[in-house]
Every structure is written in structure tokens, then in C-alpha cells.
């Protein structure tokens, strides 16, 4: 799908949505984009409540859009292909900043055996590819960019935002874009939770395994166990808000690594990597 012009005089309002403590909505003047956002953010729809930030996307010419958050411009007029990446990156930051009751890690989350597998990783590690692969194999989807761990109970709060795949791996999931739900914006592929096959993870899922993905061209998928101490240090590196309350964050991450085995997962083929992880884990 590409964003086609179907501009309305009055923008459509979507929401309210909630991810952690961030309550937000959209105002969109383009009908196709509006329709896509409505589907993609449906899992985050929440009861009527005050919206903290409205993200507005308005057509300013035949091919360019203004994007703003709470009335403040996020950019000058940009082409359609850049709208969603810009919107999601700002949304990601706002969600992480909103966290009061959760430690937020830069990690994907996938369901397995009634629990949640954490896939912490920086950009380019293959984290989103692993999440999408697991989703296509029927594992429940938890999150792409943010793993939210409750400070009090150590359990996972799902944040089922649309999943963003970079050009390097987007082609692997091109079949999913045949449906109306998955969409290419520029060379990135965006997958709503509904485009994946496994549904959503149960709220308050326990963490049952931690795998640090590392994409490496040409390698065979391998899994190497790491110690809880090493896992703790690496999780801290991937945290968005550890420093806000380091004592609580330290305590909860320590509890997590005591219970959940942690691994380095090096791979080139994400399906093989997932098989190796599941074979070992189960």
C-alpha cells in the first residue's frame, strides 16, 4: 500500500490510545493513512479519557505532509514515506518518558509457553526481524521497541504498537504486505499486530528467557548462555529509564536475571535462530 491522496477538509480524529502512561491520539487529513493508523493502533485503544498529546498529520501539498505533536511541528513538510518513521520515533520516546511504574528496555517481546521472551538489542541487531519471524510462526506479539517490566512485580506489560522493519529485512516479510494491514512507507515495512499470526501476549506475563540477538551475515544460528551478572549489565545498557530510579531498577532487573536464562543469539537466518532458541529453551 502507498499513501494515496484522499484529503478531507476536516481531519479525522483517532484515539484515545494508551501505551504505559502516554495517552495520545491522532488527527489525520489523509484517508488512507487514517485507515491504516486506525487498524495499526487498535490494540492500544483505551477507554475515553483525556488525551495528553495529539499527533497531527496534515497534507500540505499533493505529496507532502506536516507532522506535529501537541501543536509543535516535528518537521517541515515531508514526503509520505517519512511520515510514519518520524511519527513512531517520536511516539517511542514519549512512551518511554511516560513510564512511571515500569522499567523500559529497548527490546522486543514475544510470547512463548505462557511467558514472554525478551529480545533486547540496539538498532540493527535483528531484534524486530526476530519478533516478526516469531509472530509469523504463531507466537503472540508483545512489543517491538519497548519491553516494559513492572517495578513491583517484574511482569511484562505489552505495548503492541505496529512493528517497523528496516529495508534489510523488510523483503523477508513482503508476503504479509499483500494484505491491507502491512504497509511499506518508503523502504520500511510496518506491520500492525493484526498482520502477525499469533495474537497478543497476555498482560502481566512473566519473563521466561532473554536472548540478545546479533545479526551477522552468513553465520549459522548459535546460542551461547551468559551469566546472570553479565545479562544484568547488558540489560541496563538497553534501558531507557534505569537512572530515574536506579535502586528499584537494579532490584527488578536482578530478580529477572535470576529467574530467566539469558543467551547471546547470533544469526543470519531469523527462522533458524528462532528454532535454535525454542529448541534450547523448551
Amino acid at each position: 500500500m502507498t499513501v494515496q491522496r484522499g484529503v478531507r477538509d476536516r481531519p479525522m480524529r483517532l484515539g484515545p490510545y494508551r501505551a504505559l502512561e502516554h495517552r495520545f491520539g491522532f488527527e489525520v487529513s489523509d484517508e488512507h493513512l487514517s485507515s491504516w493508523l486506525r487498524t495499526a493502533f487498535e490494540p492500544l485503544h483505551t477507554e475515553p479519557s483525556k488525551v495528553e498529546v495529539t499527533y497531527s498529520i496534515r497534507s500540505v501539498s499533493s505529496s507532502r505532509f506536516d507532522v506535529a505533536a501537541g501543536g509543535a511541528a516535528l518537521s517541515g513538510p515531508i514526503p509520505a514515506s517519512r511520515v510514519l518513521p518520524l511519527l513512531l520515533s517520536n511516539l517511542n520516546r514519549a512512551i518511554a518518558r511516560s513510564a512511571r511504574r515500569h522499567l523500559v528496555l529497548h527490546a522486543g517481546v514475544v510470547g512463548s509457553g505462557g511467558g514472554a521472551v525478551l529480545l533486547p538489542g540496539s538498532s540493527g541487531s535483528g531484534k524486530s526481524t526476530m519478533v516478526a519471524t516469531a509472530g509469523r510462526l504463531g507466537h503472540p506479539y508483545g512489543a517491538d521497541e519497548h519491553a516494559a517490566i513492572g517495578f513491583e512485580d517484574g511482569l511484562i506489560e505489552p505495548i503492541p504498537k505496529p512493528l517497523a522493519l528496516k529495508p534489510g529485512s523488510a523483503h523477508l516479510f513482503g508476503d504479509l504486505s499483500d494484505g491491507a494491514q502491512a504497509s511499506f512507507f518508503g523502504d520500511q515495512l510496518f506491520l500492525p499486530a493484526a498482520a502477525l499470526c499469533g495474537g497478543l501476549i497476555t498482560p502481566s506475563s512473566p519473563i521466561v528467557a532473554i536472548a540478545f540477538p546479533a545479526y551477522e551475515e552468513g553465520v549459522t544460528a548459535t546460542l551461547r548462555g551468559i551469566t546472570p551478572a553479565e545479562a544484568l549489565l547488558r540489560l541496563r545498557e538497553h534501558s531507557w529509564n534505569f537512572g530515574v530510579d536506579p535502586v528499584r531498577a537494579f532490584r527488578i532487573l536482578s530478580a529477572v536475571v535470576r529467574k530467566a536464562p539469558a543467551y547471546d543469539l547470533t544469526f543470519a537466518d531469523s527462522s533458524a535462530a528462532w528454532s535454535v532458541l525454542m529448541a534450547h529453551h523448551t
Partner: protein
Amino acid sequence: MDDTSVRDGPCTGTIRRDGVVSERMLDGATYRPVYAGLVSQAATVPRLTVGVRSEWFDDEVVVLSVETGDLHHLDRNATLVWALIDGERTVEAIVREVAAIVDVPLQTMGGDVRAVLDQLCSTGLLVLDRDAAP
């Protein structure tokens, strides 16, 4: 007090006669005490900096510096030293006990233990208190 002004890299400070260095970062924003000389004094008593937290995982320890939010992963030797820091044992007592545990001559062990204590001090996890020595 006979003090000596020093300048070392990005830091400037004053060494007091008791070996304590009051260090001032040149950006003027950060002050932190460091300790020179105290570790080499056998009667010095190391103790944990207020607010420091640690978690044990089998024979490994991860320590949180609440002030900076940094985590420190202690290796086996450092963990052994860490386990003996109770605010009462002196540097000398710690050296003696570590040497006995790992079965290494006291003189050899002394340098290693003091190096660990130095490092723990410089990262702000320990303070050294000569006055607290029995």
C-alpha cells in the same frame, strides 16, 4: 595541615597529609573524594559508600552506584575482597584472609588486594576510614 596542590588530567585537587585527596573536576560541576595513600596503610578500614547496593549471583557480584546509576561487575578476586568488606576489617585483615583463602603468600596478595581496593575507591563504591580502625 600541610597540603599539596596537584593537577592530573582533567582533575585538580589538594592532597592532605592524611592522604585524602579532595578532587575537583575542572568543569566545576562534580566533586568527588579520592584516596591516595590510605589503601597502603594497614590499619585503614574500607566500608561501602552510603547507598551502594550489590547483588550476588553465585560467585559474581554486580554493584550499583546509586549516585551515578552505573553498574560494576566484580571479577572473582574483586568479589572475594568485596565479601570481606564489612566496615570493621582493616586492609591488613582483608589481605590476610584473602591470602589464606586462595593460598597465596601474603606479600603477593597484598598488592592485588590493594589494587582492588584502589579501584573500588576510585569508582566511588568504597570509602576508606583510618579513624575507624580498631
